């Protein structure tokens, strides 16, 4: 049943969010630390156990696949609800700080990627 896939996904996300909040409380900050990552690992784990009893049928998998397919439209909606107006009118300091942070970070990606592939050899 499709709902099995959707329910499994929701279960993983709820456990992940709760764990992320808990980690936040433990290190003393009011933020969800890594909740999405924990949820993804849990989903990967549960769908890769490989035991026959836990195997998702294709129809149940489609309950997860639907949300994967909805990812881009959801991101488009996310873009349309950003506070772009205040971002642009936030002043030069904000504009320059934000832009420079992105440019410098972009530039560092190939450096770190090369470092990691060298350490593999």
């Amino acid at each position, binding site marked *: 049943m499709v709902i099995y896939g959707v329910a499994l996904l929701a279960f993983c996300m709820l456990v992940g969010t709760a764990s992320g909040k808990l980690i936040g409380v433990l290190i003393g900050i009011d933020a969800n630390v890594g909740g*999405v990552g924990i949820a*993804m690992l849990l989903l990967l784990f549960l769908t890769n156990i490989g035991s026959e009893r836990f195997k998702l049928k294709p129809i149940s998998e489609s309950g997860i696949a639907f949300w994967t397919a909805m990812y881009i439209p959801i991101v488009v909606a996310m873009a349309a609800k*950003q506070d*772009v107006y205040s971002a642009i009118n936030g002043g030069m300091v904000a504009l320059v700080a934000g832009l420079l942070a*992105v440019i410098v970070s972009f530039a560092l990606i190939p450096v770190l990627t090369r470092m990691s592939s060298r350490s593999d050899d």
Partner: protein
Amino acid sequence: MISGIIEEVLANNALLTAFAFVGLLSLSTNKLSDVLTKGRVHGSAVAIALGLVLAYVGGALTGGTKGLADIPIFAGVAFMGGAMLRDFAIVSTAFGADLSALKKAGLVGSLSIVIGVVLSFVVGAAVAVAFGYTDPVSVATIGAGAATYIVGPVTGTALGASSEVIALSVAAGLIKSVTVMIGTPFVAKWIGLNNPTSAMIYGGLMGTTSGVAGGLAATDPKLVPYGAMTATFYTGVGCLLAPSILFILVRFILG
């Protein structure tokens, strides 16, 4: 009378209106990308960019903070694009992700989170100093804002920054997230963003969940789980480091 009924139906079924609206938007941007760029600029990249433009228009018209969603008939856009459904969709992309690729880049990915937070903070703080800010609290708050628009206000509140500086830090974070969304597809080839390892490093260095989600959607949705895996820890690490070690460092340097 007809327009009154239509408006009422659209507003009362906000989420469905958002689905229909985003569907129409995607249809037109896919056509636009085919006709104008022969498909070279991804339809989703155009859709995200147009979404941001509409968000600007919404903000300019209403003075609210939720972009297009502040216009009553588009209120559902806020729910559809809100954190719950966004994270739900992100988690779903992990289904079928390559666990060994995640493990392989685990170390450099985690390293990139710390490097990313420190780097953005330093850049933001340096810009604040260049613009004439001298008190450590303001400099650290703006630096934190260059990490993400959540780290900024968390740091500012913890350190007791003025509300004007906190607003600046949020704006810096928003600029970062918007720039990442729009810029990623254009620099992807140049920075080698085409495999799980570089996607994890990308997520760790950028850190803004919305920026990374948008940037990867417009570049290659297959990379989403890898980028999201590291980005999800960024704000937490930022909230941990910025008001503590990084602030102490700023205070030390500025005397």
